């Protein structure tokens, strides 16, 4: 079985994101970029399935500028077998990304597609579900445990009420949550080895995809800040203050 893993290049999660002067975007010049952390978990899960002998090829795929090759190289260094970059200089929104991945799925015929449940830049949490809809296959979102049983898989999903367990027939789309696994650290020799692994580049225009309706985004603003309140010295003072406010 082949597994496709989708990887997005995002601003590193440790970076304090800054809005640009025009207020029409965030500053990315000179900012550290990384693999979306949820996508790293997706790569790790695919690798573990291959390591158990249940998959024979892991293909990492991404959409973006040529700079996204860096993130695909990270996936290759983690252990993916080969990579595909669909190159575009335009902003790719979730529905457009899902259409691209659907094209790749038709070409590659994987048994499973893993993605992070959301990217930490736009926080949309949409692409996996949209891909599953276009492909007309099952989706298991926010997975915290994954167990392959031949042609089906049992997935535990993190839902607001607790843990939901579903069975899905393969092929299927799985989006992963934080608790699924801990991604491995990449070692220097793996980085060297990754440089020799195949990374194919396809221009987005070559795929013949209809551009879907797109959202227009403007007015980038910082969130409203809460003002610091007062420090109290004792429990009695705290209780009095809360009673005064009418919240006790």
């Amino acid at each position, binding site marked *: 079985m082949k597994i496709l893993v989708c990887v997005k290049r995002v601003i590193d999660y440790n970076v304090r994101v800054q809005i640009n002067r025009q207020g029409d975007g965030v500053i990315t010049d000179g900012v550290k970029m990384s693999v979306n952390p949820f996508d790293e978990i997706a790569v790790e899960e695919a690798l573990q399935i291959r390591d158990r002998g249940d998959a024979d090829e892991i293909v990492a795929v991404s959409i973006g500028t040529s700079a996204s090759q860096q993130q695909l190289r990270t996936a290759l260094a983690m252990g993916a077998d080969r990579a595909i970059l669909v190159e575009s200089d335009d902003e790719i929104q979730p*529905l457009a990304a899902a259409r691209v991945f659907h094209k790749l799925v038709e070409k590659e015929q994987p048994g499973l597609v893993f993605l992070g449940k959301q990217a930490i830049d736009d926080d949309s949490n*949409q692409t996996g*579900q949209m*891909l599953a809809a276009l492909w007309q296959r099952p989706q298991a979102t926010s997975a915290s445990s994954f167990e392959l049983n031949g042609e089906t898989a049992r997935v535990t999903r*993190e839902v607001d009420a*607790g843990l939901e367990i579903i*069975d899905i027939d393969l092929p299927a789309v799985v989006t992963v949550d934080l608790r699924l696994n801990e991604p491995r650290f990449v070692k220097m020799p793996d980085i060297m080895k990754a440089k020799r692994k195949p990374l194919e580049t396809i221009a987005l225009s070559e795929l013949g995809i209809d551009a879907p*309706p797109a959202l227009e985004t403007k007015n980038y*603003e910082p969130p409203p800040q809460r003002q610091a309140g007062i*420090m109290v010295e004792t429990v009695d003072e705290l209780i009095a203050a809360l009673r005064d406010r009418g919240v006790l």
Partner: protein
Amino acid sequence: MTRVLLIAEHDGAELNLSTAKSMSCASQIGETDVAVFSNGADSLATSAATLAGAARVLHASRPENAKPLAAVLAPQIAKLAADYTHVLAPSTTFGKDVLPRVAALLGAPQVSDIMSVESERSYKRPIYAGNVIVQVSVPDNCTVCGTVRIASFKAAATDGNAEITAVSPDADLPAHTRYIDLQAQVSERPDLQSAMRVVSGGRGVGSAENFEIIYGLADKLSAAVGASRAAVDAGYVPNDMQIGQTGKIIAPDLYIAVGISGAIQHVTGIKDAGTIVAINKDAEAPIFALADFGLVGDLFSIVPDLEKKLG
């Protein structure tokens, strides 16, 4: 004409509070019908009909709708959507799962986590873990699909009396996805997402056993209990108690953070709370920068003392 279809969230017996909160958002956009997908359980449709602002309730009852499987619900919702300009769902794990699947079937983009309605087709939403707010507009040539950030809206009143219509959208339902079980945390305490008061513990609480003092204070206040991601990662409490960007986003009237430093990812989950109280031994903890009332000291003496004096 603007017509909104709101997808109700429920647990098979009762509507989730997220439905009433999403109703408030939907009402700001236009005339709203509420769709209830269930297997029987007419009481769900009856309670949806009481939501203030609901014009009609569409009740799609069939055995396949017993559990909220996105792959089963999405084709039915997409079918109903033909009569509407907008389709909304709460931005809970339910809405996040099902609505993008609907949007893709409709060939429409989705606006996730609507915080405010700027116009019929324009909304504010958070990105970068709530560190940036943007305004997004949906083009005119497609259905508006959106999930509602429920912490941003008050629950609609329940004094309405909408007409209930049985519907059976004609859609092929897949059998490739099967519901097995829900392992819910059984608790006598209020639900975290709808509680008026919440007491939360962080890494400073130190152990699963020590969390008892958090439970003690919460019970005295009839509050729900939450935790920071650090406390969850340390194994003190299960993940469904996690508050923050990677957990639940809440807006209680009173929030008491105990032994929580106030990492940005936690703050994102609580900044819509009415009153925030922070108890922490580190006077420099970032949580004090946004708390309405801060108390520096040893939580192991403060929290039991507070519980006792609330008497």
